[in-house]
């Protein structure tokens, strides 16, 4: 790390930013695609659209995963507050 420019933090932000900021919306988009496919909205080969409950269930599983990530995000923002008021070192926060 140089005095002027924090290379390490920058690279970390870029790397994890890709995971949380790009891969996560991508996952959400996959859920939307599966849901549409499950509802028979995407005609694959011109045949009549068919419902597929497995794909729909998979879509909801993905939504659940994304929701969990958002909840972790919120808890992360609140971690100092939680640690401060419970005394439990929550998500790595130091209780003060």
């Amino acid at each position, binding site marked *: 790390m140089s*005095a*002027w*420019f*924090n290379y390490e*933090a*920058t690279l*970390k*932000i*870029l790397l*994890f*930013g*890709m*995971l*949380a*900021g*790009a*891969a*996560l*919306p*991508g996952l*959400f*988009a*996959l*859920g*939307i*695609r599966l*849901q*549409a496919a499950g*509802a028979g*909205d*995407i005609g694959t080969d011109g045949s009549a659209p068919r419902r597929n409950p497995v794909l729909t269930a998979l879509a909801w599983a993905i939504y659940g995963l*994304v*929701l969990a990530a*958002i909840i972790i*995000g*919120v808890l*992360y*923002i*609140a971690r*100092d*507050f939680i640690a*401060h008021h419970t005394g439990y070192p929550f998500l790595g926060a130091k209780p*003060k």
Partner: protein
Amino acid sequence: MNIQLFLLIIVVITALAFDFTNGFHDTGNAMATSIASGALKPKAAVALSAVLNLVGAFLSTAVAATIAKGLIDANIVTLELVFAGLVGGIVWNLLTWLLGIPSSSSHALIGGIVGATIAAVGAHGVIWSGVVSKVLIPAVLAAILAIVVGAIATWLVYRITRGVPHKSSEKGFRRGQWGSASLVSLAHGTGDAQKTMGIIFLALMSYGSVSKNAAMPPLWVIVSCALAIAAGTYLGGWRIIRTLGKGLVEIASPQGMSAESSSAAVILLSSHFGYALSTTQVCTGSVLGSGVGKPGGEVRWGVAGRMVVAWLVTLPSAGLVGAVTYWIVHLIGGYPGAVIGFSLLVAVSAVIYMKSRKVKVDHKNVNAEWEGSLTAGLDDSSRQPPHDTGTQVGVLPSRGFGAEDDTVVAENAS
């Protein structure tokens, strides 16, 4: 009442005013893309953002009296200096809001304080290496990182949902935006309300009513800062929301969701890795990225260019205002100096407010077609309802400044 207490009261009021401008200046960061894509109704969006900012403000416990730490020599901080710095921040926030430019509120505040410091003791009072490494370089990085992440997120989302009918995907993406926009709002509340708490905390320490070792500011400081930023957010900086959501890039909901996810990720990660990046620069970068990443998407580089220019001049301009304010307050001195300084701030704010009413941007016309500039085409559309109902003059006074509105209508009619 002694002069120091009088100054302290003025500093606290000014700091809360800054917090308020900080709120409406940054509403767009979290909500512009949701409003533009139609995921949230404008009023609902600002209300949600205001509530989350309020919650966020209470969540921040590590209140740092450190906005100026490492940037200026801590031993020279006086109440006059803090006041002048705040004035620089407020005036610059109002000016950029008038022009609809999303610029960083932290930069405006830092600029004001640095300017006031130079006026007070000269350039040696400023730790320039800190200004470069903690303010200037992170600003550039924030924008670049967010553009990259935002562009890749948008590209990925469009690639994955290719061939999915619009009607099946739209609802999902709008719901996704609720989550992503909420995260950005919450993160903003924890970060930005803290800055003002820090300033008031600093002022209280300098006055001596709070111990220099205190870890937390008094409760009233936290409550009033939280309320000020939430009230500002609820007011909605419609002019800036319009630039971010309509002017820079025409935002559709998949882009909005990608941009907000990218912003939330970059802001939270940067605070996690101890390399705080400015919310505004991150959010603007993400929006730009979402324009770059969308297949066939369009970015209005002219608008982006104007914005970058505004970012570049934020520090020196706010600094100049801060310096001039310091001179005025310090040279006149005593009660008159403080009163005149504060009156000038009120006068300048009033003038800017009056100017903003000429062609008003509000929750009704924030999403109107972008016709080359912030207000182009709006002076007609914002007055559409009176034309429809045919009761022109009777409806106008509700907008305030009725006389002024009448003249504008007259000009349009001719």
